[in-house]
């Protein structure tokens, strides 16, 4: 639902315009889901289907016939296999399912080897008094760090950066803009980015045009420093360590990281505000001051897509989900939009995240694709959203202390860092700041959204405690326990134990790639460049069976309707016979979709009359329900511990995560 268009029930524009409060969102989640999140219909389907099936773009990736399905392990249970009468098909499917299961078991068996627990960083309190770890200073941590790790701790004081150049830049800026700005306001605030291999640190000074490409481990400048003499709003590394892009005052430019030479000027990216890069798709994204998101294929130099947000200048830096490549934009009216170049006309989804004044300050998405994190400009809140169910925040927390959040980033291990606009404050939480009981994978998750103060793992103040220091960007360094903080006084690299993945993969960009490996990786990246159409909310839609999305939606609606009715009817019939027989009986009766507020005497009378009608469908449903209950009872009496666990949909204790899908899946098949 783009801001220009209107939804079927026309609630979108009114809600966005009115700017409902946060409480609105949490109170009536189903309505918000319908109004704000694009996928209308059910939340995560129970039968293991992909969460956003109807969002996948129409493309040639889908399987056009039922053959050897790729999703066999998820899609077909043993019982279902037994029902297939066609021998060859059954054998093929069984082989595929067995292969998938074996692969998962092998992965589970070797999980320990790949997660190098001895090497991974950690902070472990040893007594009750030491429970808080946030107060740890960098000095404490550096004392415990090895020589290798200590290289991650350094400070670049760039405030005393060449005054003449800075003033030149300031004069130019003052000339170009009508508003009068003082030099104070034009203090350089540095954007910091790491390359995918973590070898290169890229710094771009916003107001002074100072760009630094640094091999930070060796503390070596890869290219001469650039003094561009104009605004540098954002910088990003491209697919290799040898190229980077800057969003300058008018255009986006691409530079060679080895020589600092300008290679390209992308004139179609006019007045860019923020940049991002999708390294598997070789797409460079920029959003401009009119709120237009552009995708350029850097291998061919062609524009892949152009998406208009129609919401004006973005208030948050562009973020890209490393899990599915979806771009997230944050806007002044508090809306966060999710974009894919495969569907440039409308956002895949939009969330009214921070309706209070000022809008969205920062957006981030984590590598596992579980969370989207947003921060508001004036409401001082950080909201964590389950990426699969964007209708209500999973958790909202309000960091204590001054200043508003300017930047967010997530680490490979799921840590969340936030930079603040006042006093150089930076805070880091573990698990994106979500308490354990709200974790999406938690077995007994509390369903209602929570709001509380979460204890950070670690926090600091950068810029020597000066009051005027504003953090411009925070960036976790991949494969290292390092957090880079760009602020108005320069750059500071801090050690955050437990932030980086301890074990790298030689086939992915990593800090220890040799020259030959780097060359090969570049060729491979070009050969295996993904088409822009492969970006969707569910990145695994390729190879699934294509179905008409509208029919699918209709079916889901009918199924949920029938289920709701059946449960409602059965509840009356079964309640007196069994006590707590079914595990899905405990919540309140689901309200009818059409039900509105207030009394409805005619409707009530009709419903009462309907109760006495003997309906074949109803009887069949009741019988089925009873049969299920008795089967469950039998299973329980048989006392098969593990099997019982599985049928309840719970994963047994101590089971590796890779095998969890099978348990969940078996339970859905039983149902």
């Amino acid at each position, binding site marked *: 639902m783009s801001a220009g268009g209107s939804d079927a029930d026309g609630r979108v524009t009114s809600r966005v315009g009115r700017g409902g409060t946060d409480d609105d969102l949490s109170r009536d989640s189903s309505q918000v889901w319908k109004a704000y999140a694009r996928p209308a219909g059910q939340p995560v389907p129970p039968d293991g289907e992909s969460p956003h099936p109807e969002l996948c773009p129409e493309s040639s990736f889908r399987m056009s016939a039922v053959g050897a399905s790729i999703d066999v392990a998820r899609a077909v249970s043993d019982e279902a296999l037994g029902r297939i009468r066609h021998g060859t098909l059954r054998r093929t499917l069984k082989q595929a399912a067995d292969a998938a299961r074996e692969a998962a078991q092998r992965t589970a068996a070797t999980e320990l080897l790949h997660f190098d627990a001895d090497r*991974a960083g950690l902070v472990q309190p040893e007594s009750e008094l030491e429970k808080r770890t946030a107060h740890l200073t960098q000095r404490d941590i550096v004392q415990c760090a090895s020589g290798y790790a200590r290289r991650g701790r350094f400070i670049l004081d760039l405030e005393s950066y060449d005054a003449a150049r800075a003033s030149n830049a300031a004069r130019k800026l003052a000339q170009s803009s009508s508003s009068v700005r003082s030099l104070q306001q034009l203090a350089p605030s540095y954007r910091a980015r790491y390359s995918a291999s973590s070898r290169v640190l890229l710094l771009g000074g916003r107001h002074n045009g100072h760009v630094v490409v640094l091999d930070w481990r060796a503390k070596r400048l890869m290219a001469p420093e650039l003094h561009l003499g104009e605004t540098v709003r954002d910088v990003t590394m491209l697919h290799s360590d040898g190229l980077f892009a800057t969003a300058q005052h008018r255009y986006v430019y691409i530079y060679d990281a080895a020589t600092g030479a300008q290679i390209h000027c992308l004139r179609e990216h006019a007045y860019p505000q923020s940049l991002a890069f999708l390294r*598997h798709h070789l797409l460079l994204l920029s959003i401009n001051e009119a709120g237009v998101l552009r995708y350029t294929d850097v291998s061919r130099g062609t524009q892949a897509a152009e998406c208009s947000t129609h919401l004006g200048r973005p208030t948050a830096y562009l973020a890209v989900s490393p899990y599915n490549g979806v771009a997230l934009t944050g806007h002044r009216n508090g809306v966060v939009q999710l974009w894919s170049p495969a569907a440039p006309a409308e956002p895949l989804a939009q969330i009214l995240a921070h309706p209070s004044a000022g809008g969205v300050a920062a957006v981030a998405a984590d590598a596992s694709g579980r969370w989207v994190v947003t921060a508001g400009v004036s409401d001082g809140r950080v909201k964590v959203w389950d990426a699969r169910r964007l209708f209500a925040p999973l958790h909202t927390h309000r960091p204590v202390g001054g200043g508003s959040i300017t930047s967010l980033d997530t680490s*490979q291990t799921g840590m969340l860092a936030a930079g603040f606009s006042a006093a150089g404050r930076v805070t880091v939480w573990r698990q994106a700041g979500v308490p354990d009981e709200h974790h999406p994978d938690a077995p007994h998750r509390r369903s209602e959204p929570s709001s509380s103060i979460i204890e950070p793992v670690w926090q600091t103040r950068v810029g020597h405690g000066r009051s005027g220091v504003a953090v411009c960007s925070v960036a976790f360094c991949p494969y290292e326990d390092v957090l880079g903080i760009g602020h108005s006084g320069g750059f500071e690299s801090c050690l955050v134990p437990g932030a980086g993945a301890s074990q*790298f993969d030689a086939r992915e960009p990593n800090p220890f*790639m*040799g020259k030959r490996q780097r060359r090969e990786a570049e060729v491979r990246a070009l050969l295996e460049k993904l088409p822009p159409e492969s970006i969707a909310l569910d990145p695994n839609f390729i190879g699934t069976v294509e179905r008409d999305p509208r029919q699918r939606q209709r079916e889901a609606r009918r199924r949920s309707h029938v289920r709701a009715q059946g449960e409602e009817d059965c509840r009356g019939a079964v309640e007196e016979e069994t006590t707590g027989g079914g595990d899905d009986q405990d919540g309140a009766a689901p309200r009818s979709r059409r039900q509105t507020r207030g009394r409805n005497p005619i409707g009530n009378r009709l419903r009462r009359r309907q109760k006495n009608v003997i309906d074949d469908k109803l009887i069949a449903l009741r019988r089925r329900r009873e049969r299920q209950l008795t089967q469950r009872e039998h299973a329980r009496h048989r006392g098969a511990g593990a099997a019982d666990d599985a049928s309840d949909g719970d994963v047994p204790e101590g089971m590796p995560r890779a095998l969890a899908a099978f348990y969940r899946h078996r339970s859905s098949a039983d149902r």
Partner: protein
Amino acid sequence: MRIHVLSRSEKELRQTTVAASTRNYHPDLHPFERAREYQRALNAAKLERALAQPLVTTAEGHCDGVYRLATHPRRLADVASGAGDGELRVWRLSRGCLWRNTQAHGGMIVGLSSSADGRLLFSCSGDSGVCAWEWPESFGDAPQQPSSVFRARGSAFSALDVALENSASTATFATGTEAGQLWLWHTDRSEPMLRLQDAAAATEELALITSVRFHPSDASLLSSSGADRRVRLFDVRQRGSVGNTRLPMRANEVAWNPMDTYLLSVATDDHNVYTHDMRRLDRVRSTQVGHVGAVLSVHYSPTGRELCTGSYDSLVRIYPTHARQARDVYYTRRMQRVFAVRFSSDAHYLLSGSDDGNVRVWKTHASEPLRPLLPRERRALDHANALKRKFSQVGEVRRLLRQRHLPRRVHHALRQKHQELASRQRKAERRERHS
């Protein structure tokens, strides 16, 4: 407070190969896994089509069409070809040269087969009977006269096969006659040991036998295909036929699956190959379709996993044993009607003899390199094949793997055939609905 910051041994990582072989399969480190695999599969499929060069070599020289082929059981490159003018040629294909050419018969060679020990080569023609020749050991050393001759008396021969087991110096072979009889011979005797005939059929019904094949594991079982559309199973111990089935059209050649020895494939005139189970001859196990002319020859790969066919539409097709559609199709501009196809004994090559008088050698897998592969190359190829298999039903990969360019006339004929079949089915359905 216990604090530990991630640390690595840089010396080890920089100076050894540890950094190049370290793996971490955590899914977060490998985003877009499915999309990237699909892309790799797509690249592999494209590469396969780009590198597909199936034709290895052509052996030229016959003055008439090549109607029968035989391979040496031990020597991979030795091949014999029999032509319509009775000329028999023996080739050493690895050197690309002809080892011997003999005017073996006065008429068309209807049967050509090698003994199991690779000592004798039997050729058969309609009136002149069967000649046994020594396989030449080297160039030009072979005699111009056959080592023995077995005359046909009373009826002309139309097919020949040699048993797969033989003793040190002798061999058993069978010939089919134009009168629909099967004669069993032994190299020690000048007269046939046994004359087999389908007792159930009346004599006037019996028609020319187009091919005869010994069972690969039981020497007393034989199968034959006849011009009277019948496939028959004979048992020497019972001295007669033990089963038969009738096909829609004339059966041209019959072939046993060498691994699943109960499977029997028949090439027929109605463009299809039918595979039967010898225990239930009346039932068709699978049908191989795709030709637009009569299928003249069918042969199984020694592994039993694939079968190849040669057809009157001048195409050679390769089918996986149980598949309905062909895996690949081979043709050249100059190749005419294909009368004989054979797999080489290592299953890597395919031979075809056609009406234009040439013997052609093809690769079984059109894009695989023929040279020995390094282990790394082998692994890369296996990986690519696994990916292609995984995504064989998806989008562009499916199209690339299945689509083949065909000669214009075949393409049109195929389209017309599809239309005819669809129309026939439509008509049948309507008739059913309104009856």
